């Protein structure tokens, strides 16, 4: 097969464009990319499969529940529980079926918004010692050992949730990653990365900046269905989604020189990927692509709320967890701020695996190629308040679908069986 040899100096300035570029912000070198894939940096320890045991999860993933028993344990009669879980009954009906699953807390409280009204039934976490991500605290004695032997990798998010079926699997094949990346690649959002340096050798430069920005331009798929390189993307100044990382390069590997606060677009239900003490570790590969991690401490409550707002009963039934257990697990393992008591820790160490392709990145007005990493937040329009709880056109309240047209609804006092339903 013909494989043309790609010159390493991808983005040689064209004379014509140089003339047009104002002598403004110019680094000595720049490379730019578009993120074509990003997913949780969850190390996969099995040979194959999703639920099968591996070094990460020796018992395999958390098993599927018998929801009839779960409902009975929550105080429903067997007859009620069976009716609710019978597929012959319309399962998405707001009256019965899955919505009623919300109401299994103490006094039939909604467990999604009151997880502590329900006991912790347990979530099995990762027990292997290999993990991916970044040594955030500089301590080699805490955290995982990377697959290449680097000690002190901090990724408690993985330790806590890595045996959850939806977030486990070989690279680019876990269903959680597939779902969101498929959407991203089809145009739901685009993020670009610009790397600029002041030194002479891009591969070894002590003065580098890396910027993550939103772009209004879609990725384009080629004839083979993969994202195509070398397209041009404008930067979309965004009040929230931007991350600027001071860094240096060593043999082509970009590493942070100081932690920062960054907010990226989450390839998940939460949308906001807020990171404290954020760092990067990205390799500029010989084929022109960029690959590595963005890590930091992420607030865990919004992540939990993301699953609730994606319709709690659907997440529970499809991904084999009880959401209150997820809540308890995150709360028990949160590791930041380190100085705070466990119950006051609001953040959890986290890492995103990023793969990006060479692309041209231009200024918001498309007039010039971006030659230096700077903040564009000042140029961003005010954010409009997102319409929370809307999933497509369905209104979600407290984790369940609300259809106001219907008379009978799920709830603490709902009458379950149709025979007793007047």
């Amino acid at each position: 097969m013909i494989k043309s040899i790609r010159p390493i100096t991808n983005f040689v300035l064209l004379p014509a464009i140089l003339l047009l570029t104002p002598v403004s912000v110019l680094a000595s070198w720049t490379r730019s990319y578009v993120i074509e894939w990003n997913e949780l940096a969850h190390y996969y320890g099995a040979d194959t499969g999703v639920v099968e045991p591996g070094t990460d999860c020796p018992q395999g993933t958390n098993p599927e529940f018998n929801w009839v028993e779960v409902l009975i344990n929550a105080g429903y009669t067997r007859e009620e529980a069976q009716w609710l879980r019978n597929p012959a009954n319309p399962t998405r009906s707001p009256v019965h079926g899955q919505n009623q699953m919300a109401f299994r807390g103490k006094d039939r409280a909604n467990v999604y918004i009151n997880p502590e009204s329900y006991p912790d039934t347990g979530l099995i976490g990762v027990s292997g010692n290999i993990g991916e991500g970044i040594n955030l605290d500089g301590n080699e004695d805490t955290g995982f050992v990377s697959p290449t032997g680097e000690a002190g990798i901090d990724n408690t998010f993985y330790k806590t949730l890595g045996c959850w079926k939806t977030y486990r699997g070989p690279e680019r094949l876990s269903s959680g990653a597939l779902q969101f990346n498929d959407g991203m690649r089809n145009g739901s959002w685009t993020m670009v990365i610009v790397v600029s340096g002041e030194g002479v050798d891009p591969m070894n430069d002590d003065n580098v900046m890396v910027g993550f920005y939103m772009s209004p331009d879609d990725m384009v798929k080629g004839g083979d269905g993969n994202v195509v390189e070398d397209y041009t993307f404008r930067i979309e100044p965004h009040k929230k989604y931007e991350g600027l990382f001071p860094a240096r390069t060593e043999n082509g590997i970009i590493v942070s020189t100081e932690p920062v606060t960054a907010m990226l677009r989450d390839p998940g239900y939460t949308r906001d990927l807020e990171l404290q003490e954020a760092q990067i570790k990205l390799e500029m590969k010989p084929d022109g692509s960029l690959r590595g991690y963005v890590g930091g401490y992420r607030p865990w409550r919004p992540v939990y709320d993301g699953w609730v707002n994606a319709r709690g009963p659907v997440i529970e039934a499809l991904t084999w967890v009880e959401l209150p257990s997820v809540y308890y697990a995150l709360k028990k393992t949160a590791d930041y701020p380190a100085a705070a008591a466990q119950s006051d820790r609001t953040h959890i160490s986290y890492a995103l695996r990023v793969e990006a392709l060479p692309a041209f990145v231009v200024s918001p007005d498309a007039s010039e190629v971006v030659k230096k990493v700077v903040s564009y937040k000042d140029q961003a329009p005010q954010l409009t308040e997102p319409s929370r709880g809307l999933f497509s056109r369905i209104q979600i309240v407290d984790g369940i679908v609300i259809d106001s047209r219907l008379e009978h609804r799920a709830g603490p006092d709902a009458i379950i069986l149709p025979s007793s339903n007047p």
Partner: protein
Amino acid sequence: MKFRLNRRSLLRGMVGSATVSMGIPLLDIFLNENGTAYADGSRVPVRFGTYFWGLGLTDTPAGGTRWVPEKIGSGYEVTPELKAIAGLKDKISVFSGFRAIPDTKPNLVHWSGHASILSGTAPSTTSRFEAASFDTRIADAIGTSTRFKSVNIDASVSRRPISYSTRSGSTFSSPDVTPLELYNRLFGEGYQDPNSDNWQPNPEIMLRQSVLSAVTDQRQALMKSIGKDDREKLDQYFSSVRDMENQLAVQLQRPEPREACILPRAPEELPKAASVDVVNANTKVMARLLAMGLACDQTRVFNFVHTGGTSETYIAGERKIYHQITHDEPTDTLLGYQPQSSKLAGLVMEGLGAFLEELDGVKEGDGTLLDNCLVMAFSDTGYAKIHSIDNIPILFAGGAGGRHKTGQHIHEEGSSVTRVSLTAMQLAGAPVGEFGTGSMRTSNPITEVIA
């Protein structure tokens, strides 16, 4: 003397792997063209229908496919999830690799896929299409001389009737949802038995005749003092006009007694449940009624929904619905796919098999009703687990009166689904040269399946 036509120069368009739509510009070839015709010159009408099923078929990113045949072109092998159509394989073309391209719009799960296929435009919201579904264009072209321009059927036994046929994009046709409703529509009040004496001509046809007569009146004036080649060209033109006149004349006569048309008995009520066995039974009964409706020329266009986009069908006695299983069932390590989802996909395809067998069971002319139909069967997703709108399975069944080169597997990775839709329109006889918008705009039909 004219310079010689170089036959090879005509075939030069075939180089490379692409077949280029060439038509048949050589006079001596098209002068012999007759099409499928009865002895009196009237054509057996081509019928068109859509057949929709929910949740796609199994083709996983891990590499496990349960439906895409390995062999491209004719003589493709029967894959596990296509087993139900094995018996009719030679009358069916399979399209793989085609995708919906939403451009800047979101992938609205269980909606964007078939909205793109049918309307050519990715939708902005669920419950609406941005444009008419293309079956209406076909109905405008071939459905005007029958009692119903099109018939819409939903066999899914869902909570709400499901139809994806729309002219406005917002109002969808109301389908018949039980065999009895369908029977009453086709054979109830207003039914004219083509085999009975009580028959009225359609005045619309006479008006079309008058359009043509003004053309043919001028024939002699035009044929006066003309060269040989030019006369041949105009002869061919007028012979095409005459073909159309013959068709119109036939429609003005009391229809041929249609042997295949036998008034069916009213169907019995089936149990009302969304389980796959009931839906398939429903499909079979409704297909039989529909086939007779087509044979009796009550309609020439139909839209059939087997199961909806978010299919709620399930295996009787089991505790999860199909939709849930596609999302929550893990991929089996050894098999490389989701076994239960694949089993359900196979069961759902049995509905299509039964449907097509009913059409193929009606003799018509030298062949079967199916030979004179083009049924475009498709789904809302490719790999349902992640709501993928890549590689959405699409099948063409039936010969479209000889226009469809059946029995092929067409694989085009990443090509727009609208190309398949455009091909369907052209095979069905709709005068449409371009379809779709944005990245899904195309004027490039899949010539391999066009005879």
